[in-house]
């Protein structure tokens, strides 16, 4: 049997398709992308090495500054809001028996739907004269320009989009927390009630510490998801008005595939990649602690 399992030929045949795909479609392009980010490269000319020029241009790029600010806003907003809402919903749902699956499935539903489609829907709902504003007008209230107002440090459209993203994706965090909470032994809670804990206290002292590893996982997923964020923005505002709702992904798309500045767009891509790796490492370092026995 050992001979059978050590068969070199078999190993190569089993690994080859996945390994080749992974290498040629992911690993090599990543390396190329890093190289391109040091190049003057567009649709007309082949890549020419120019050192750090693209990265220097990044610093002076006003739209990039907005995109970076918006992306970081999304990152922080989604990490915090999904943690709070996700945990809250998970705690509520694990406390009821009847209808738990129903409510769970309803809240998770938008996660599996096309965010391009939902983006169009919300674009309509928050449009100047229709949707919500039409409803508000019935009560004689003039609604704000949800997706066009550009005053304030974090402009209104960003808040709107951030809440839509929370609406769409909170189900994922909720699911992960629920899975973790339902794995906690009932005996622990019973013991805590005997010791005089109420539900809130037992949540604080039993549930929270025991789901910390999952908090790290869910947060990393949120963080990477919000840095990659593209579909909703693209279909709700397309980065407008006047590039005010641009995020890193939409800016990369614009630079790379509207203006065909491949080299410069690659530099944005590298920035995005570095941010993803940093944030995941940071979250795992801060949030994750040793696993408790459950």
């Amino acid at each position: 049997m050992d001979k059978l399992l050590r068969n070199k030929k078999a190993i190569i045949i089993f690994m080859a398709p996945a390994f080749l795909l992974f290498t040629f479609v992911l690993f090599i392009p990543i390396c190329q992308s890093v190289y391109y980010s040091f190049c003057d490269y567009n649709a007309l000319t082949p890549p020419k090495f120019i050192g750090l020029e693209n990265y220097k241009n990044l610093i002076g790029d006003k739209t990039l500054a907005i995109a970076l600010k918006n992306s970081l806003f999304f990152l922080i907003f989604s990490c915090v809001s999904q943690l709070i809402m996700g945990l809250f919903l998970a705690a509520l749902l694990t406390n009821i028996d009847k209808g738990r699956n129903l409510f769970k499935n309803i809240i998770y539903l938008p996660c599996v739907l096309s965010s391009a489609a939902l983006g169009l829907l919300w674009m309509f709902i928050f449009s100047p004269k229709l949707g919500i504003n039409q409803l508000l007008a019935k009560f004689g209230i003039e609604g704000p320009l949800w997706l066009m107002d550009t005053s304030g440090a974090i402009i209104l459209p960003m808040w709107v989009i951030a809440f839509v993203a929370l609406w769409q994706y909170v189900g994922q965090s909720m699911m992960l927390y629920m899975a973790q909470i339902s794995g906690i032994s009932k005996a622990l809670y019973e013991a805590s009630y005997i010791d005089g804990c109420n539900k809130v206290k037992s949540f604080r002292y039993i549930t929270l510490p025991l789901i910390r590893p999952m908090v790290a996982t869910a947060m990393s997923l949120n963080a990477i998801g919000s840095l990659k964020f593209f579909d909703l923005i693209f279909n709700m505002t397309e980065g407008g008005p006047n590039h005010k709702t641009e995020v890193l992904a939409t800016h990369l798309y614009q630079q790379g595939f509207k203006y065909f500045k491949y080299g410069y767009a690659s530099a944005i891509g590298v920035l995005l990649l570095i941010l993803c790796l940093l944030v995941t490492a940071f979250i795992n370092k801060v949030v994750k602690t040793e696993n408790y026995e459950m």
Partner: protein
Amino acid sequence: MKKISIQKIIIYIFLVLMAVLYLAPLLWVFNVSFKTNKEIFTAPFALPQAPTFENFAFAWTAGKLGIATLNSFIVCIVTLLLSMVFGSMAAFAIARLRWKLSHASLVYFLIGMMIPVHCVMIPLFTRFAKVGLTNSLIGLILPYLTFALPVTIFIMVGFFEGMPNELIESACIDGATIFEIFFKVCLPLGKTGLFVTGLMTFIANWNELLLAMVFISDDMKKTLPVSLSKFVGPYNTNYSQMFAAIIIAIVPTIVVYCAFSNQIVDGLTAGAVKG
């Protein structure tokens, strides 16, 4: 006892409100997609006076959603099948075959989970443009498949590692080759795992917009999210058709979700717990 029941009532009221917040927009789209464009402006919340399928017909043919739906199905099904086969083959080699670099190659695949597709888009696009893979469904399938592999491999490694040794041993004694062991013994037993990862892959690719938009410009090759995004724009205010298009795009995933919600949840939690 009474205090607890009041608590429960508050919880239920809150949950019902949440459910309304989630279902109302979707039901509303469904409702208005049967209306004329004029009705959307005059009576957006009423039921349609004379339900019409014209919006769907228009979106399906003139809006090219019919061909887009077909393209999406082709891309998703091919990706799904290939990712299951290639992913589980690699997972089997990593979990069961005995070689030095098995753990290292698992790590290699798992790194892929962290990499956003945005970062490989430009080199892939320029390369594919050279070899004629842009504006081709194969050019979409390749990256979709690659990005589906890490999760598939991760979940299937878990499945294969959990299988008892005796299983493989006895197949061995019966004279099975390693391929027979994989295809006839292990793979059928890993069905549930495969099914779960397949669902996740299908849903993710059905909804993918960015790569599809970059790689495909030919109307006949576009996938649903791309064709859908065309319904918005300063020159198009025909909302009733847009809503019909939205319904066309989300109904397949709603159906899949209703049928397999438990497996999808399993897939989500299994895929997330990557230590």
